[in-house]
């Protein structure tokens, strides 16, 4: 029991120690380590947006999305074509859209932030529309049908990107996606500015999800996950609530895709590989603890931490056999990790909360203070 309670902080501390310690030990350079950590933290923040989004779908609503990559892809590409300038007809680079200049108002340095804001909203809406289209045929059926369908649509969208190379430049990738505020800072500082942006977006998403889940609406979703029939029997429209949970999660994934596209500056069909864009995010949520937003974020940190550390290990004297296969070994470890977590610690690092109600929280606090608890009024 004691060990169980200590396990979570221990894991977090060990991963944090490795993530800071290994690069510092290897480079023995303060600036280098700080730069590495800035990039690391940015990636964790972006992945945390995805795990929070997946948590809305799976952890709270119980909807089973195996095609995170599809919403990731739609969000990232939508955002990219919104902020890029129009394609140059002279060059071989071809893509649709390119509204960057049209969306830049000529005041307050508008070109540095307005298109990006619009692009994030556009990405959310595009992902949301895709979610509605997928939900209509599958959401009334067995829960694993949605899983198979989402796997399929992720693959289909990747195919379309590759085949229709006039759409978003096909397998040659879309490069040179502008970064917000890049006109004000040099590249080195911009790294930290971007870390700030990613953290701000993550914070907004986190507060939004927390608020939504602790509302009556969120409690219906939780009830749905626990027992669909009972929820239906208490007069809730199961289909509508499932749809809302699924679409909200998908829209947040679109936001994550947009932030990812700005941070990377280039995206191609290989970016949205099933392992990288779906499975890793699931691993993060499962390790962290589905049904808990803090769990989702710490899962993103732990899994991405282990993921990067494995490559750092290659700097040491590993046997050749391992060194040449480090990428595959890493894939295996993530696959094995998820099975192990499911078998040994199915609730993850930070388990689901039993009570998610702002109203009840307030009442409990009041009664603990000894204040009179007002009847049924919140």
């Amino acid at each position, binding site marked *: 029991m004691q060990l169980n309670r200590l396990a979570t902080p221990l894991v977090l501390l060990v991963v944090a120690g490795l993530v800071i310690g290994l690069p510092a030990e290897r480079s023995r350079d303060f600036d280098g380590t700080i730069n590495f950590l800035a990039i690391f933290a940015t990636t964790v923040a972006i992945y945390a947006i995805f795990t929070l989004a997946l948590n809305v779908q799976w952890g709270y609503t119980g909807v089973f999305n195996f095609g995170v990559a599809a919403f990731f892809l739609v969000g990232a590409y939508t955002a990219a074509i919104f902020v890029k300038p129009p394609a140059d007809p002279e060059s071989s680079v071809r893509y649709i859209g390119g509204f960057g200049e049209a969306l830049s108002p000529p005041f307050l340095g508008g070109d540095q932030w307005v298109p990006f804001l619009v692009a994030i909203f556009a990405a959310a809406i595009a992902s949301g529309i895709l979610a509605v289209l997928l939900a209509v045929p599958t959401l009334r059926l067995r829960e694993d049908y949605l899983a*198979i369908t989402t796997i399929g649509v992720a693959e289909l969208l990747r195919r379309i990107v590759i085949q229709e190379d006039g759409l978003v430049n096909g397998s040659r990738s879309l490069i040179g996606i502008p970064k917000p505020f890049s006109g004000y800072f040099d590249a080195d500082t911009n790294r930290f500015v971007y870390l700030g942006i990613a953290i701000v977006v993550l914070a907004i998403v986190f507060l939004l999800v927390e608020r939504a889940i602790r509302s009556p609406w969120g409690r219906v979703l939780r009830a749905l996950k626990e027992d669909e029939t009972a929820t239906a029997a208490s007069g809730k429209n199961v289909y509508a609530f499932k749809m809302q949970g699924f679409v909200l999660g998908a829209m947040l994934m679109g936001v994550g895709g947009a932030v990812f596209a700005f941070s990377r500056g280039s995206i191609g069909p290989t970016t949205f590989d099933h392992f990288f864009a779906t499975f890793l995010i*699931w691993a993060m949520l499962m390790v962290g603890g589905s049904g808990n937003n803090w769990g989702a974020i710490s899962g993103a940190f732990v899994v991405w931490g282990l993921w990067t550390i494995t490559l750092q290990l290659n700097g040491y004297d590993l046997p050749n056999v391992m060194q040449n296969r480090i990428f595959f070994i890493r894939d*295996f470890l993530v*696959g094995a990790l998820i099975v192990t977590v499911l078998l040994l610690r199915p609730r993850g690092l930070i388990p689901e909360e039993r009570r998610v109600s702002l109203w009840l929280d307030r009442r409990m606090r009041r009664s603990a203070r000894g204040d009179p608890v007002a009847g049924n009024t919140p």
Partner: protein
Amino acid sequence: MSIVPAQFNDRLTSLGEQYRRFSETTATALLWVLISILFLWAAIFETDLFIAGMIVGSVLALGAIGLTLIYSILGFANFAHGDTMMLGAYVAFFLLTGIVVGEKPNIDLDVGWSLNRMPGATAELWDLSFGWGLLVAIALSMFVMAAFSIGLDRVVYRPLRRRGSGIVIFAMAALGVAFSIRAVMLIIWGPDPRRYVQGIHYANHYPFGVVLKTDQIFIFLVAMGLAAVMYFVLFHSKLGKAMRAMADNPDLALVSGINTDRIVMWTWAIGGGLMAIAGALLAIQALLRPILGFELILPLFAATILGGIGKPQGAFIGALVVGVSQESSIVFFSAGYKPAVAFVILVFILLLRPRGLFGTAS
């Protein structure tokens, strides 16, 4: 007390009832008509594509029969099915050639023992591209994969079953297993494509513009033969009866005195064996690539759901439909969209008749 007027509710209910009746009779009839039109059109106007599709479909069928049995008897979507098929193909490759990737990538290491070194094992049988070595390798790989599947069930799925986990947890575990298996194939045999037999083998010309390698005829005959064996096992043996009973209703099967643990074991054994053969047959006419396993998932699931979960005969027909539509789709779309065809079939079935051709009301 409802805000919605009663008439509206009644109207909705009757619409639902009408849709149910539609899906019961008309949709099934419609599906059969569409499938017949597809087969007739392909057989008459695109004979070579039709035959290519039947060959791919017959191999898919072996995978889909295993998948549908696991799906219904164990009650979860086995996303590791495609990757296990490829693992079976690689095990056969290893037994045949004894090759793994050495210390450096791109440089192969020969373990020094292989079926290929047996006298006469590589001598080509009839007009086929391979000798008896490959047949023995496939047969051995079948047993290896059956044992592997049972072992995997003991280590991963049985503990989950004991705990009463939901189907989603099973599916997640299966996906974890799938990625682990793929990583193991990449670690041992590397990402580059492999083939069982080196060298070029020419195809023969047949009437109606059909060009076929004898290998392909062999694949088709073996797959069809095994499907026939499966039919007898499932429909005319006590084990098969017990398996189908358990697929229909596990609790009822348990109280009727069926040893469900034993049935689960047999399901994995049969599923694993079929996976090994299907993977190896697929690899005879294509190349062995670790990534191929994941690309198989969608066609396999489309075939299973089209036929109705738990219905081996449905999975068989579903697989042929998926195979023929995939191959003949290149008349209309670029070949890059082939994997997307299975997806379109899947969505179409989910909209029209979610429980598939042979599925019964639950």
